[in-house]
């Protein structure tokens, strides 16, 4: 078991620790890096090292950024009184890519997951409550994922905000683009009907 790994095996085993990467992909990537023209591998290695040394966590929204507060939190063109609550930084990035949200964010850093022993005290909720209680926020948009853990987390955040003067909304659920009614589960179909809107609105 403890024999020395070859350099290729070391890269494969390191890549395999990344989410969504299996043995096959890891091996393909390792051979790609081996054969790639000169700056490709060294650029990647340096970028990874700098990722850990140059990135800080934004003190307001808790997303990783090159400075704190981050460029989103300090952007004066954004609608500062709307805060979108997401589970992870990757969710923030996904909403930013969509391009139609102009408010600010709060990253919870996870979801309630009792089966993993993750309870309310493991979520980053205090700073969000502070922002709301300080009167900085008109609307909190709960954008946790529509799975049981994400739903329970949305419920928990809403419950924590119940005594605050703030509008709490939940992102809409419905038919996925390119979806097919025949293949969509019935909870999604039901919610699509509940969340319908006037045509052309």
């Amino acid at each position, binding site marked *: 078991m403890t024999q020395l790994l070859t350099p290729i095996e070391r890269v494969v085993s390191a890549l395999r620790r990344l989410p969504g990467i299996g043995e096959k992909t890891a091996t393909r990537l390792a051979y790609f890096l081996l054969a790639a023209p000169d700056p490709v591998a060294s650029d990647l290695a340096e970028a990874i090292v700098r990722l850990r040394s140059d990135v800080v966590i934004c003190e307001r929204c808790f997303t990783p950024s090159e400075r704190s507060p981050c460029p989103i939190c300090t952007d004066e063109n954004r609608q500062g009184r709307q805060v979108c609550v997401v589970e992870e930084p990757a969710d923030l990035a996904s909403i930013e890519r969509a391009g139609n949200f102009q408010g600010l964010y709060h990253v919870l850093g996870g979801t309630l997951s009792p089966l993993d022993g993750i309870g309310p005290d493991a979520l980053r909720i205090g700073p969000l409550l502070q922002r709301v209680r300080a009167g900085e926020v008109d609307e909190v948009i709960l954008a946790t994922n529509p799975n049981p853990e994400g739903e329970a987390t*949305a419920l928990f955040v809403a419950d924590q905000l119940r005594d605050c003067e703030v509008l709490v909304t939940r992102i809409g659920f419905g038919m996925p683009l390119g979806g097919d009614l025949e293949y*969509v*589960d019935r909870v999604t179909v039901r919610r699509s009907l509940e969340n319908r809107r006037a045509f052309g609105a």
Partner: protein
Amino acid sequence: MPEYRTAALVLRTFDHGESDRLVHLYTEKLGRVSAIAKGARRSQRRFPGTLEIFSKLEVQIVDPPRAQLMRLEGAVLVEPGEPLVQHLGRFAIASQLLEMLDRLTGEREANPELFHFSAGVLTVLCAERPDRLLALLVQLKTLARLGYRPQLVACAGCGQPVSGRDRVAFDVAHGGATCPDCASGEAPRVPASLLARLEVGIRTPLRQRGELGIPDRAVRQAERLFSRFVLFHVGLELRTADFLSQIRDLECLDGKRARGDTAPASGAAPAGAAAGSAGRA
């Protein structure tokens, strides 16, 4: 290759490799199994909306020879667990049940009665306003079915009835209520009537728990007794126990107030309107 069709509850799910999910199921015919759902992460059509915790499914499982894991071939949603996430108390109680099925049952030890009991508890939870007594009784009923039934009306040491007494010792190491001869010195004394009512509670449908006449103060006392009982006899700390106690502290299990009772979506403006205002702002 052996193929099974059975009812199943989804206990846990994990991402597995690049496109699959590993699913822990408690099935009617096979007991607890782990199965790979091929392509479940990649394709929306393969297992649409089914592989989430609390879901009750009809599944088709194959057991390929020499393969380590069974393979989930198909799944039809019979009862979604959605109502369980509309209240944090329900979510906490249902999660504890899943954890007990996931960690306290043997792999492929079929126990259809335990399956029907568990599916029934989830169905009841979907419609109940959860309170601390409900959480306690679900735990006790489940423990009893898993073989960890506490002694509540007869001495765990010598078997003589203790329910006629005023207060009895609750000796965790012995397995529950103990008479004065069998009790160890440090075991806490509790009202015999409380233990007797819990014994009735184990056999009473959850919906009728209000008729047991167990006051809130006694429920809290029993919670402490049985958290030590579980630790001692089950030999592990349930991950959901701490969650449940945090939810209790948030008063989501006080039964009187409707805290956390409304899903945010149904309480606030319709989602379409919310999205519209976001666009205008």
